[in-house]
Protein backbone atom coordinates (compact mmCIF):
# COMPACT_ATOMS: atom_id res chain seq x y z
CA UNK A 1 0.00 0.00 0.00
CA UNK A 2 1.40 3.41 -0.90
CA UNK A 3 2.04 5.04 2.47
CA UNK A 4 3.24 8.56 2.75
CA UNK A 5 5.75 8.69 5.61
CA UNK A 6 4.68 12.20 6.61
CA UNK A 7 1.04 11.35 7.16
CA UNK A 8 1.84 8.03 8.76
CA UNK A 9 3.81 9.77 11.50
CA UNK A 10 0.89 11.94 12.50
CA UNK A 11 -1.34 9.05 13.48
CA UNK A 12 -0.80 6.83 16.44
CA UNK A 13 0.45 3.38 15.53
CA UNK A 14 -2.73 1.56 16.43
CA UNK A 15 -4.87 3.84 14.30
CA UNK A 16 -2.53 3.80 11.33
CA UNK A 17 -4.13 1.18 9.12
CA UNK A 18 -7.68 2.25 9.81
CA UNK A 19 -6.86 5.90 9.20
CA UNK A 20 -5.07 5.25 5.96
CA UNK A 21 -7.73 3.03 4.66
CA UNK A 22 -10.07 5.92 5.20
CA UNK A 23 -7.58 8.54 4.00
CA UNK A 24 -8.46 8.29 0.30
CA UNK A 25 -12.20 8.29 -0.26
CA UNK A 26 -14.26 6.70 -2.99
CA UNK A 27 -13.17 3.07 -2.81
CA UNK A 28 -16.67 1.67 -2.50
CA UNK A 29 -18.09 3.98 -5.14
CA UNK A 30 -15.42 3.42 -7.78
CA UNK A 31 -15.14 -0.33 -7.20
CA UNK A 32 -18.92 -0.52 -7.36
CA UNK A 33 -19.04 1.34 -10.67
CA UNK A 34 -16.20 -0.78 -12.07
CA UNK A 35 -17.69 -4.12 -11.08
CA UNK A 36 -21.26 -3.31 -12.16
CA UNK A 37 -20.22 -1.87 -15.50
CA UNK A 38 -17.77 -4.72 -16.16
CA UNK A 39 -20.43 -7.29 -15.33
CA UNK A 40 -23.18 -5.64 -17.34
CA UNK A 41 -21.18 -4.93 -20.48
CA UNK A 42 -18.67 -7.79 -20.57
CA UNK A 43 -19.02 -10.62 -18.07
CA UNK A 44 -22.74 -11.38 -18.14
CA UNK A 45 -23.03 -11.14 -21.95
CA UNK A 46 -19.99 -13.41 -22.42
CA UNK A 47 -21.33 -15.87 -19.85
CA UNK A 48 -24.51 -15.86 -21.91
CA UNK A 49 -22.64 -17.46 -24.81
CA UNK A 50 -21.58 -20.37 -22.60
CA UNK A 51 -25.03 -20.62 -21.06
CA UNK A 52 -26.59 -20.88 -24.49
CA UNK A 53 -23.88 -23.28 -25.69
CA UNK A 54 -24.47 -25.50 -22.65
CA UNK A 55 -28.11 -25.76 -23.72
CA UNK A 56 -26.98 -27.44 -26.93
CA UNK A 57 -25.29 -30.31 -25.11
CA UNK A 58 -22.04 -31.98 -26.12
CA UNK A 59 -23.63 -33.72 -29.08
CA UNK A 60 -25.07 -30.50 -30.43
CA UNK A 61 -21.76 -28.68 -30.00
CA UNK A 62 -19.73 -31.46 -31.60
CA UNK A 63 -22.20 -31.79 -34.43
CA UNK A 64 -21.73 -28.12 -35.37
CA UNK A 65 -18.01 -27.98 -34.77
CA UNK A 66 -17.18 -31.18 -36.65
CA UNK A 67 -18.89 -30.13 -39.87
CA UNK A 68 -16.43 -29.95 -42.73
CA UNK A 69 -17.10 -26.26 -43.39
CA UNK A 70 -16.47 -25.24 -39.78
CA UNK A 71 -13.32 -27.34 -39.57
CA UNK A 72 -12.01 -25.83 -42.82
CA UNK A 73 -12.67 -22.32 -41.50
CA UNK A 74 -10.95 -23.05 -38.17
CA UNK A 75 -7.99 -24.47 -40.02
CA UNK A 76 -7.78 -21.34 -42.18
CA UNK A 77 -8.28 -18.86 -39.32
CA UNK A 78 -5.71 -20.46 -37.04
CA UNK A 79 -3.29 -21.49 -39.80
CA UNK A 80 -3.24 -18.10 -41.50
CA UNK A 81 -3.00 -16.34 -38.13
CA UNK A 82 0.01 -18.50 -37.27
CA UNK A 83 1.78 -17.68 -40.54
CA UNK A 84 0.98 -13.97 -40.19
CA UNK A 85 2.21 -13.93 -36.58
CA UNK A 86 5.48 -15.65 -37.55
CA UNK A 87 5.95 -13.17 -40.38
CA UNK A 88 5.25 -10.31 -37.97
CA UNK A 89 7.63 -11.74 -35.37
CA UNK A 90 10.49 -11.74 -37.89
CA UNK A 91 9.80 -8.34 -39.42
CA UNK A 92 8.57 -6.83 -36.16
CA UNK A 93 11.88 -7.71 -34.52
CA UNK A 94 13.75 -6.22 -37.46
CA UNK A 95 11.68 -3.02 -37.34
CA UNK A 96 12.04 -2.72 -33.55
CA UNK A 97 15.79 -3.25 -33.81
CA UNK A 98 16.22 -0.64 -36.54
CA UNK A 99 14.07 1.94 -34.72
CA UNK A 100 15.76 1.46 -31.35
CA UNK A 101 19.36 1.15 -32.51
CA UNK A 102 19.81 3.28 -35.61
CA UNK A 103 19.15 6.84 -36.62
CA UNK A 104 17.98 7.72 -40.09
CA UNK A 105 16.02 10.45 -41.82
CA UNK A 106 12.24 10.17 -41.47
CA UNK A 107 12.47 7.97 -38.39
CA UNK A 108 9.87 9.84 -36.34
CA UNK A 109 7.40 9.83 -39.22
CA UNK A 110 7.76 6.11 -39.84
CA UNK A 111 7.55 5.46 -36.12
CA UNK A 112 4.16 7.19 -35.97
CA UNK A 113 2.92 5.10 -38.90
CA UNK A 114 3.71 1.82 -37.15
CA UNK A 115 0.50 2.34 -35.15
CA UNK A 116 -1.58 2.84 -38.29
CA UNK A 117 -3.24 -0.60 -38.03
CA UNK A 118 -4.53 0.39 -34.57
CA UNK A 119 -5.97 3.66 -35.86
CA UNK A 120 -7.21 2.73 -39.32
CA UNK A 121 -10.70 1.15 -39.33
CA UNK A 122 -10.51 -2.47 -40.40
CA UNK A 123 -13.03 -2.02 -43.22
CA UNK A 124 -10.85 0.72 -44.71
CA UNK A 125 -7.79 -1.49 -44.42
CA UNK A 126 -9.73 -4.32 -46.05
CA UNK A 127 -10.78 -2.46 -49.18
CA UNK A 128 -7.37 -0.77 -49.49
CA UNK A 129 -5.51 -4.09 -49.33
CA UNK A 130 -7.93 -5.61 -51.82
CA UNK A 131 -7.38 -2.72 -54.23
CA UNK A 132 -3.61 -3.21 -53.93
CA UNK A 133 -3.49 -6.96 -54.36
CA UNK A 134 -6.29 -7.49 -56.90
CA UNK A 135 -5.15 -8.45 -60.40
CA UNK A 136 -5.20 -4.80 -61.59
CA UNK A 137 -3.86 -3.32 -58.33
CA UNK A 138 -0.50 -1.67 -57.73
CA UNK A 139 1.01 -4.86 -56.30
CA UNK A 140 -1.28 -7.49 -57.82
CA UNK A 141 -0.43 -6.52 -61.39
CA UNK A 142 3.21 -7.48 -60.81
CA UNK A 143 2.40 -10.70 -58.97
CA UNK A 144 -0.26 -12.01 -61.32
CA UNK A 145 2.11 -12.62 -64.29
CA UNK A 146 4.25 -14.65 -61.86
CA UNK A 147 1.25 -16.83 -61.12
CA UNK A 148 0.90 -15.54 -57.56
CA UNK A 149 -2.65 -14.77 -56.55
CA UNK A 150 -3.20 -12.99 -53.24
CA UNK A 151 -6.61 -11.34 -53.35
CA UNK A 152 -9.57 -13.77 -53.20
CA UNK A 153 -7.20 -16.51 -52.06
CA UNK A 154 -6.11 -17.79 -48.60
CA UNK A 155 -2.90 -15.78 -49.06
CA UNK A 156 -5.03 -12.63 -48.93
CA UNK A 157 -6.15 -13.66 -45.45
CA UNK A 158 -2.49 -13.88 -44.40
CA UNK A 159 -1.75 -10.43 -45.85
CA UNK A 160 -4.68 -8.81 -44.00
CA UNK A 161 -3.73 -10.56 -40.75
CA UNK A 162 -0.13 -9.41 -41.14
CA UNK A 163 -1.34 -5.83 -41.54
CA UNK A 164 -3.48 -5.78 -38.40
CA UNK A 165 -0.95 -7.66 -36.24
CA UNK A 166 2.09 -5.62 -37.21
CA UNK A 167 2.22 -3.12 -34.31
CA UNK A 168 1.91 -5.77 -31.59
CA UNK A 169 5.38 -7.29 -32.01
CA UNK A 170 7.13 -3.97 -32.65
CA UNK A 171 5.56 -2.24 -29.64
CA UNK A 172 6.22 -5.15 -27.25
CA UNK A 173 9.84 -5.69 -28.32
CA UNK A 174 10.88 -2.02 -28.56
CA UNK A 175 10.96 -1.18 -24.82
CA UNK A 176 12.91 -4.36 -24.01
CA UNK A 177 15.48 -3.64 -26.71
CA UNK A 178 15.77 -0.04 -25.51
CA UNK A 179 16.41 -1.18 -21.94
CA UNK A 180 18.95 -3.85 -22.87
CA UNK A 181 22.22 -2.85 -21.28
CA UNK A 182 24.96 -1.75 -23.60
CA UNK A 183 27.50 -2.76 -20.96
CA UNK A 184 26.68 -6.42 -21.50
CA UNK A 185 27.32 -6.06 -25.21
CA UNK A 186 30.54 -4.21 -24.53
CA UNK A 187 31.58 -6.93 -22.11
CA UNK A 188 30.85 -9.59 -24.71
CA UNK A 189 32.87 -7.67 -27.28
CA UNK A 190 35.72 -7.22 -24.80
CA UNK A 191 35.73 -10.94 -24.16
CA UNK A 192 36.26 -11.47 -27.86
CA UNK A 193 32.77 -12.25 -29.08
CA UNK A 194 32.05 -11.19 -32.62
CA UNK A 195 29.01 -9.06 -33.33
CA UNK A 196 26.96 -12.03 -34.50
CA UNK A 197 27.76 -14.05 -31.38
CA UNK A 198 26.88 -11.05 -29.21
CA UNK A 199 23.53 -10.66 -30.93
CA UNK A 200 22.55 -14.32 -30.77
CA UNK A 201 23.96 -15.07 -27.31
CA UNK A 202 23.47 -11.78 -25.43
CA UNK A 203 20.76 -9.69 -27.05
CA UNK A 204 18.29 -12.28 -28.33
CA UNK A 205 17.98 -14.19 -25.03
CA UNK A 206 16.87 -10.99 -23.29
CA UNK A 207 14.41 -10.15 -26.06
CA UNK A 208 12.69 -13.44 -26.72
CA UNK A 209 10.08 -13.30 -23.91
CA UNK A 210 8.84 -9.98 -25.30
CA UNK A 211 9.02 -11.37 -28.83
CA UNK A 212 6.92 -14.38 -27.86
CA UNK A 213 4.37 -12.15 -26.08
CA UNK A 214 4.08 -9.90 -29.12
CA UNK A 215 3.74 -12.96 -31.33
CA UNK A 216 0.92 -14.33 -29.17
CA UNK A 217 -0.89 -10.96 -29.12
CA UNK A 218 -0.64 -10.65 -32.91
CA UNK A 219 -1.84 -14.24 -33.27
CA UNK A 220 -4.82 -13.72 -30.94
CA UNK A 221 -5.83 -10.54 -32.73
CA UNK A 222 -5.53 -12.18 -36.16
CA UNK A 223 -7.68 -15.18 -35.20
CA UNK A 224 -10.61 -12.97 -34.25
CA UNK A 225 -10.19 -10.41 -37.03
CA UNK A 226 -13.10 -9.91 -39.39
CA UNK A 227 -13.35 -6.49 -41.04
CA UNK A 228 -10.11 -6.34 -42.98
CA UNK A 229 -10.22 -9.98 -44.08
CA UNK A 230 -13.67 -10.41 -45.61
CA UNK A 231 -12.95 -7.98 -48.43
CA UNK A 232 -9.69 -9.54 -49.58
CA UNK A 233 -10.47 -13.18 -48.85
CA UNK A 234 -13.13 -13.75 -51.49
CA UNK A 235 -14.95 -15.86 -48.87
CA UNK A 236 -15.12 -19.08 -50.87
CA UNK A 237 -16.62 -21.80 -48.63
CA UNK A 238 -14.05 -24.44 -47.62
CA UNK A 239 -11.24 -22.38 -49.19
CA UNK A 240 -11.03 -18.81 -47.96
CA UNK A 241 -13.82 -18.54 -45.41
CA UNK A 242 -12.69 -17.48 -41.91
CA UNK A 243 -14.42 -18.59 -38.71
CA UNK A 244 -15.83 -15.18 -37.65
CA UNK A 245 -17.50 -14.91 -41.05
CA UNK A 246 -19.05 -18.34 -40.55
CA UNK A 247 -20.60 -17.08 -37.29
CA UNK A 248 -22.20 -14.23 -39.22
CA UNK A 249 -23.43 -16.57 -41.95
CA UNK A 250 -25.05 -18.83 -39.33
CA UNK A 251 -26.70 -15.79 -37.75
CA UNK A 252 -28.06 -14.65 -41.09
CA UNK A 253 -29.55 -18.11 -41.56
CA UNK A 254 -31.10 -17.73 -38.06
CA UNK A 255 -29.05 -20.73 -36.94
CA UNK A 256 -28.41 -19.23 -33.50
CA UNK A 257 -27.36 -22.57 -32.04
CA UNK A 258 -24.69 -23.07 -34.71
CA UNK A 259 -23.40 -19.51 -34.33
CA UNK A 260 -23.24 -19.91 -30.56
CA UNK A 261 -21.37 -23.21 -30.77
CA UNK A 262 -18.67 -21.71 -33.00
CA UNK A 263 -18.49 -18.55 -30.87
CA UNK A 264 -18.09 -20.60 -27.69
CA UNK A 265 -15.27 -22.59 -29.27
CA UNK A 266 -13.51 -19.40 -30.41
CA UNK A 267 -13.99 -17.72 -27.03
CA UNK A 268 -12.55 -20.75 -25.24
CA UNK A 269 -9.54 -20.85 -27.52
CA UNK A 270 -8.85 -17.14 -27.05
CA UNK A 271 -9.25 -17.44 -23.25
CA UNK A 272 -6.75 -20.29 -23.23
CA UNK A 273 -4.36 -18.22 -25.30
CA UNK A 274 -4.79 -15.23 -22.97
CA UNK A 275 -4.18 -17.48 -19.95
CA UNK A 276 -1.06 -18.89 -21.60
CA UNK A 277 0.28 -15.37 -22.25
CA UNK A 278 -0.37 -14.32 -18.64
CA UNK A 279 1.19 -17.47 -17.17
CA UNK A 280 4.18 -17.07 -19.45
CA UNK A 281 4.69 -13.45 -18.43
CA UNK A 282 4.38 -14.34 -14.75
CA UNK A 283 6.94 -17.10 -15.28
CA UNK A 284 9.35 -14.70 -17.00
CA UNK A 285 8.92 -12.13 -14.19
CA UNK A 286 9.63 -14.77 -11.55
CA UNK A 287 12.72 -15.95 -13.37
CA UNK A 288 14.25 -12.47 -13.31
Amino acid sequence: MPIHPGTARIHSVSLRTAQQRRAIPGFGLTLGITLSYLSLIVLIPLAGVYFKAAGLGWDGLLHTLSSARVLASLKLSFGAALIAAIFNAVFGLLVAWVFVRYRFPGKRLFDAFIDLPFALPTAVAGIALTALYAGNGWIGRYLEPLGIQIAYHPLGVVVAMTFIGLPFVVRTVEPVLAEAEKELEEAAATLGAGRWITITRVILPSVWPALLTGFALAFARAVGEYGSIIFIAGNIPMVSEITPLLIIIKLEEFDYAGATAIAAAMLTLSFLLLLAINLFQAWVRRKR
Partner: protein
Amino acid sequence: MSENLDHSLQDPPQLPSEFGTGPLVRKNSAITEPAWVRWLLIALALAFLSLFLLLPLLSVFTEALRDGWGTYLSALREPDAMAAIRLTLIAALIAVPLNLVFGVAAAWCIAKFEFRGKQLLISLIDLPFSVSPVVAGLVYVLIFGAQGWAGPWFAAHDIKVIFAVPGIALATVFVTFPFIARELIPLMQEQGTDDEQAALTLGAGGFRTFWSVTLPNIKWGLLYGVLLCNARAFGEFGAVSVVSGHIRGQTNTLPLHIEILYNEYAFAAAFAVASLLAGLALVTLALKTFLEWRYADQLAAAHRR
Protein backbone atom coordinates in the same frame (compact mmCIF):
# COMPACT_ATOMS: atom_id res chain seq x y z
CA MET B 1 10.82 7.48 -27.62
CA SER B 2 13.99 5.53 -27.30
CA GLU B 3 16.29 8.06 -28.85
CA ASN B 4 17.77 9.17 -25.55
CA LEU B 5 18.91 5.59 -25.09
CA ASP B 6 20.36 5.40 -28.54
CA HIS B 7 24.05 4.75 -28.26
CA SER B 8 24.72 6.94 -31.23
CA LEU B 9 24.03 9.91 -28.95
CA GLN B 10 27.31 9.15 -27.24
CA ASP B 11 28.97 10.08 -30.47
CA PRO B 12 29.55 13.69 -31.42
CA PRO B 13 26.13 15.06 -32.37
CA GLN B 14 27.28 16.22 -35.78
CA LEU B 15 28.12 12.66 -36.73
CA PRO B 16 25.11 10.34 -36.50
CA SER B 17 26.39 6.79 -36.29
CA GLU B 18 24.83 5.60 -39.52
CA PHE B 19 27.27 7.77 -41.40
CA GLY B 20 29.96 5.78 -39.58
CA THR B 21 32.94 7.42 -41.23
CA GLY B 22 34.42 9.68 -38.57
CA PRO B 23 37.17 8.32 -36.36
CA LEU B 24 35.21 9.03 -33.17
CA VAL B 25 32.33 6.84 -34.32
CA ARG B 26 34.60 3.85 -34.78
CA LYS B 27 35.17 3.85 -31.04
CA ASN B 28 31.81 2.17 -30.63
CA SER B 29 32.16 -0.29 -33.47
CA ALA B 30 32.37 -3.19 -31.03
CA ILE B 31 28.69 -2.82 -30.17
CA THR B 32 27.30 -1.86 -33.52
CA GLU B 33 27.21 -3.37 -36.97
CA PRO B 34 29.19 -2.39 -40.05
CA ALA B 35 27.65 0.52 -41.95
CA TRP B 36 26.49 -1.63 -44.86
CA VAL B 37 24.65 -4.01 -42.50
CA ARG B 38 22.98 -1.07 -40.78
CA TRP B 39 21.83 0.47 -44.03
CA LEU B 40 20.64 -2.89 -45.32
CA LEU B 41 18.55 -3.48 -42.18
CA ILE B 42 17.14 0.05 -42.29
CA ALA B 43 16.25 -0.38 -45.96
CA LEU B 44 14.59 -3.75 -45.29
CA ALA B 45 12.56 -2.42 -42.37
CA LEU B 46 11.42 0.68 -44.24
CA ALA B 47 10.57 -1.35 -47.33
CA PHE B 48 8.43 -3.66 -45.21
CA LEU B 49 6.66 -0.72 -43.53
CA SER B 50 6.11 1.07 -46.83
CA LEU B 51 4.72 -2.03 -48.50
CA PHE B 52 2.39 -3.00 -45.65
CA LEU B 53 1.44 0.38 -44.19
CA LEU B 54 2.05 3.36 -46.45
CA LEU B 55 0.94 1.79 -49.71
CA PRO B 56 -2.54 0.77 -48.43
CA LEU B 57 -3.01 4.23 -46.93
CA LEU B 58 -1.95 5.92 -50.13
CA SER B 59 -4.24 3.73 -52.20
CA VAL B 60 -7.28 4.82 -50.15
CA PHE B 61 -6.82 8.44 -51.19
CA THR B 62 -5.84 7.62 -54.78
CA GLU B 63 -8.85 5.36 -55.32
CA ALA B 64 -11.13 7.92 -53.66
CA LEU B 65 -10.13 10.60 -56.17
CA ARG B 66 -9.95 8.30 -59.18
CA ASP B 67 -13.16 9.70 -60.68
CA GLY B 68 -12.38 13.28 -59.73
CA TRP B 69 -13.46 15.66 -56.97
CA GLY B 70 -17.05 15.82 -58.21
CA THR B 71 -17.71 12.13 -57.56
CA TYR B 72 -15.79 12.34 -54.33
CA LEU B 73 -17.84 15.17 -52.89
CA SER B 74 -21.18 13.81 -54.09
CA ALA B 75 -20.41 10.45 -52.43
CA LEU B 76 -19.98 12.27 -49.13
CA ARG B 77 -23.03 14.49 -49.58
CA GLU B 78 -25.34 11.60 -50.33
CA PRO B 79 -28.17 11.30 -47.70
CA ASP B 80 -27.20 7.72 -46.78
CA ALA B 81 -23.61 8.79 -46.20
CA MET B 82 -24.75 11.72 -44.05
CA ALA B 83 -27.00 9.36 -42.05
CA ALA B 84 -24.05 7.00 -41.58
CA ILE B 85 -21.86 9.85 -40.35
CA ARG B 86 -24.57 10.90 -37.91
CA LEU B 87 -25.03 7.37 -36.55
CA THR B 88 -21.28 6.84 -36.18
CA LEU B 89 -21.04 10.10 -34.23
CA ILE B 90 -23.94 9.07 -31.98
CA ALA B 91 -22.36 5.67 -31.25
CA ALA B 92 -19.01 7.30 -30.41
CA LEU B 93 -20.73 10.00 -28.31
CA ILE B 94 -22.35 7.27 -26.22
CA ALA B 95 -19.42 4.87 -26.03
CA VAL B 96 -16.57 7.28 -25.28
CA PRO B 97 -18.13 9.12 -22.28
CA LEU B 98 -19.37 5.85 -20.75
CA ASN B 99 -15.95 4.26 -21.04
CA LEU B 100 -14.39 7.49 -19.79
CA VAL B 101 -16.38 7.40 -16.54
CA PHE B 102 -15.68 3.70 -16.19
CA GLY B 103 -11.99 4.13 -16.97
CA VAL B 104 -11.52 6.83 -14.34
CA ALA B 105 -13.48 4.84 -11.74
CA ALA B 106 -11.58 1.63 -12.48
CA ALA B 107 -8.21 3.38 -12.40
CA TRP B 108 -9.10 5.14 -9.12
CA CYS B 109 -9.99 1.96 -7.22
CA ILE B 110 -7.16 -0.09 -8.73
CA ALA B 111 -4.40 2.53 -8.38
CA LYS B 112 -5.29 4.11 -5.05
CA PHE B 113 -6.27 1.03 -3.04
CA GLU B 114 -5.05 -2.46 -2.27
CA PHE B 115 -7.53 -5.31 -2.39
CA ARG B 116 -7.72 -9.00 -3.18
CA GLY B 117 -8.27 -10.06 -6.76
CA LYS B 118 -6.89 -6.82 -8.18
CA GLN B 119 -4.77 -8.59 -10.80
CA LEU B 120 -7.78 -10.62 -11.87
CA LEU B 121 -9.83 -7.43 -12.19
CA ILE B 122 -7.14 -5.89 -14.43
CA SER B 123 -7.14 -9.00 -16.63
CA LEU B 124 -10.95 -8.94 -16.86
CA ILE B 125 -10.88 -5.29 -17.94
CA ASP B 126 -8.55 -6.27 -20.79
CA LEU B 127 -10.84 -9.12 -21.81
CA PRO B 128 -12.72 -7.36 -24.66
CA PHE B 129 -9.41 -6.98 -26.51
CA SER B 130 -9.08 -10.73 -26.86
CA VAL B 131 -12.66 -11.39 -27.91
CA SER B 132 -13.37 -11.44 -31.64
CA PRO B 133 -15.54 -8.44 -32.57
CA VAL B 134 -18.00 -10.79 -34.24
CA VAL B 135 -18.44 -12.72 -30.99
CA ALA B 136 -18.89 -9.39 -29.18
CA GLY B 137 -21.79 -8.58 -31.49
CA LEU B 138 -23.21 -12.08 -31.14
CA VAL B 139 -23.44 -11.89 -27.33
CA TYR B 140 -25.84 -8.96 -27.58
CA VAL B 141 -27.93 -10.70 -30.24
CA LEU B 142 -28.24 -13.68 -27.86
CA ILE B 143 -29.52 -11.37 -25.11
CA PHE B 144 -31.58 -8.76 -26.93
CA GLY B 145 -32.43 -10.51 -30.21
CA ALA B 146 -35.91 -11.77 -31.07
CA GLN B 147 -34.94 -15.24 -29.79
CA GLY B 148 -32.83 -13.86 -26.94
CA TRP B 149 -33.52 -13.94 -23.18
CA ALA B 150 -34.42 -10.28 -22.82
CA GLY B 151 -35.68 -9.93 -26.39
CA PRO B 152 -39.38 -10.63 -25.73
CA TRP B 153 -39.46 -8.21 -22.78
CA PHE B 154 -37.96 -5.39 -24.82
CA ALA B 155 -40.25 -6.20 -27.76
CA ALA B 156 -43.28 -6.06 -25.45
CA HIS B 157 -42.21 -2.62 -24.28
CA ASP B 158 -41.61 -1.54 -27.86
CA ILE B 159 -37.89 -0.94 -27.37
CA LYS B 160 -35.67 -1.94 -30.23
CA VAL B 161 -32.14 -2.85 -29.24
CA ILE B 162 -30.85 -5.16 -31.97
CA PHE B 163 -30.97 -3.71 -35.50
CA ALA B 164 -31.27 -0.28 -33.90
CA VAL B 165 -29.13 2.43 -32.34
CA PRO B 166 -28.96 0.97 -28.77
CA GLY B 167 -27.47 -2.29 -30.06
CA ILE B 168 -24.92 -0.44 -32.17
CA ALA B 169 -23.95 1.72 -29.19
CA LEU B 170 -23.68 -1.35 -26.93
CA ALA B 171 -21.43 -3.19 -29.39
CA THR B 172 -19.25 -0.09 -29.70
CA VAL B 173 -19.05 0.22 -25.90
CA PHE B 174 -17.91 -3.42 -25.68
CA VAL B 175 -15.06 -3.18 -28.20
CA THR B 176 -13.78 0.17 -26.88
CA PHE B 177 -14.22 -0.87 -23.23
CA PRO B 178 -10.55 -1.20 -22.09
CA PHE B 179 -8.88 1.71 -23.91
CA ILE B 180 -9.15 4.51 -21.32
CA ALA B 181 -8.88 2.27 -18.26
CA ARG B 182 -5.71 0.55 -19.44
CA GLU B 183 -4.03 3.91 -20.12
CA LEU B 184 -5.03 5.38 -16.75
CA ILE B 185 -4.37 2.38 -14.48
CA PRO B 186 -0.55 2.24 -14.88
CA LEU B 187 -0.34 6.04 -14.94
CA MET B 188 -2.23 6.50 -11.67
CA GLN B 189 -0.41 3.57 -10.08
CA GLU B 190 2.84 5.31 -10.85
CA GLN B 191 1.64 8.64 -9.44
CA GLY B 192 0.72 7.05 -6.11
CA THR B 193 -1.45 8.80 -3.53
CA ASP B 194 0.87 11.49 -2.16
CA ASP B 195 -0.84 14.42 -3.88
CA GLU B 196 -4.28 13.24 -2.85
CA GLN B 197 -3.15 12.66 0.76
CA ALA B 198 -1.82 16.21 0.88
CA ALA B 199 -5.06 17.68 -0.48
CA LEU B 200 -7.15 15.69 1.99
CA THR B 201 -4.93 16.69 4.89
CA LEU B 202 -5.44 20.31 3.89
CA GLY B 203 -9.17 19.76 4.20
CA ALA B 204 -10.32 19.21 0.61
CA GLY B 205 -13.27 16.88 0.12
CA GLY B 206 -13.07 13.73 -1.95
CA PHE B 207 -14.60 15.20 -5.09
CA ARG B 208 -12.60 18.43 -4.81
CA THR B 209 -9.42 16.36 -4.44
CA PHE B 210 -10.21 14.43 -7.56
CA TRP B 211 -11.20 17.52 -9.55
CA SER B 212 -8.32 19.82 -8.66
CA VAL B 213 -5.51 17.38 -7.84
CA THR B 214 -5.96 14.04 -9.60
CA LEU B 215 -7.57 15.25 -12.81
CA PRO B 216 -4.82 17.78 -13.67
CA ASN B 217 -2.27 15.00 -13.05
CA ILE B 218 -3.91 12.58 -15.44
CA LYS B 219 -5.36 14.92 -18.07
CA TRP B 220 -2.90 14.09 -20.85
CA GLY B 221 -3.13 10.38 -20.20
CA LEU B 222 -6.90 10.72 -20.21
CA LEU B 223 -6.83 12.56 -23.53
CA TYR B 224 -4.54 9.87 -24.93
CA GLY B 225 -6.97 7.15 -23.90
CA VAL B 226 -9.97 9.08 -25.26
CA LEU B 227 -8.15 9.49 -28.57
CA LEU B 228 -7.57 5.75 -29.01
CA CYS B 229 -11.05 4.89 -27.74
CA ASN B 230 -12.60 7.36 -30.17
CA ALA B 231 -10.63 6.05 -33.16
CA ARG B 232 -11.84 2.52 -32.47
CA ALA B 233 -15.43 3.69 -31.85
CA PHE B 234 -15.53 5.36 -35.27
CA GLY B 235 -13.99 2.42 -37.07
CA GLU B 236 -15.56 -0.62 -35.43
CA PHE B 237 -16.90 -2.97 -38.04
CA GLY B 238 -17.30 -6.61 -36.97
CA ALA B 239 -19.28 -6.16 -33.77
CA VAL B 240 -21.48 -3.40 -35.20
CA SER B 241 -22.05 -5.43 -38.36
CA VAL B 242 -23.66 -8.25 -36.35
CA VAL B 243 -26.11 -6.04 -34.45
CA SER B 244 -26.88 -3.43 -37.10
CA GLY B 245 -29.09 -5.21 -39.60
CA HIS B 246 -27.62 -3.02 -42.36
CA ILE B 247 -30.66 -0.85 -42.96
CA ARG B 248 -29.51 1.88 -45.33
CA GLY B 249 -29.87 5.38 -43.99
CA GLN B 250 -30.99 4.04 -40.60
CA THR B 251 -28.64 1.55 -38.95
CA ASN B 252 -25.54 1.92 -41.10
CA THR B 253 -22.41 3.32 -39.54
CA LEU B 254 -19.61 4.67 -41.73
CA PRO B 255 -17.67 1.37 -41.94
CA LEU B 256 -20.86 -0.52 -42.80
CA HIS B 257 -21.73 2.09 -45.41
CA ILE B 258 -18.31 1.48 -46.97
CA GLU B 259 -19.05 -2.25 -47.15
CA ILE B 260 -22.41 -1.72 -48.85
CA LEU B 261 -20.99 0.70 -51.43
CA TYR B 262 -18.09 -1.65 -52.09
CA ASN B 263 -20.34 -4.67 -52.57
CA GLU B 264 -22.41 -2.62 -55.02
CA TYR B 265 -19.23 -1.96 -57.01
CA ALA B 266 -19.46 1.76 -56.23
CA PHE B 267 -15.71 1.67 -55.60
CA ALA B 268 -14.98 5.39 -55.91
CA ALA B 269 -17.79 6.19 -53.46
CA ALA B 270 -16.66 3.45 -51.05
CA PHE B 271 -13.12 4.80 -51.07
CA ALA B 272 -14.38 8.38 -50.72
CA VAL B 273 -16.17 7.46 -47.49
CA ALA B 274 -13.14 5.37 -46.47
CA SER B 275 -10.89 8.39 -46.97
CA LEU B 276 -12.87 10.22 -44.27
CA LEU B 277 -12.04 7.48 -41.79
CA ALA B 278 -8.45 7.27 -43.04
CA GLY B 279 -8.18 11.03 -42.48
CA LEU B 280 -9.46 10.57 -38.94
CA ALA B 281 -6.86 7.82 -38.42
CA LEU B 282 -4.12 10.20 -39.60
CA VAL B 283 -5.32 12.94 -37.24
CA THR B 284 -5.39 10.38 -34.41
CA LEU B 285 -1.83 9.29 -35.18
CA ALA B 286 -0.64 12.90 -35.39
CA LEU B 287 -2.23 13.87 -32.05
CA LYS B 288 -0.98 10.66 -30.46
CA THR B 289 2.57 11.32 -31.65
CA PHE B 290 2.33 14.92 -30.45
CA LEU B 291 1.18 13.81 -26.98
CA GLU B 292 3.93 11.20 -26.80
CA TRP B 293 6.50 13.79 -27.78
CA ARG B 294 5.30 16.74 -25.71
CA TYR B 295 3.90 15.03 -22.60
CA ALA B 296 5.88 11.79 -22.55
CA ASP B 297 6.42 12.13 -18.79
CA GLN B 298 2.67 12.27 -18.16
CA LEU B 299 1.65 9.26 -20.25
CA ALA B 300 1.77 5.67 -19.12
CA ALA B 301 1.94 4.49 -22.72
CA ALA B 302 5.11 6.49 -23.29
CA HIS B 303 6.68 4.99 -20.17
CA ARG B 304 5.99 1.48 -21.32
CA ARG B 305 7.72 2.10 -24.61
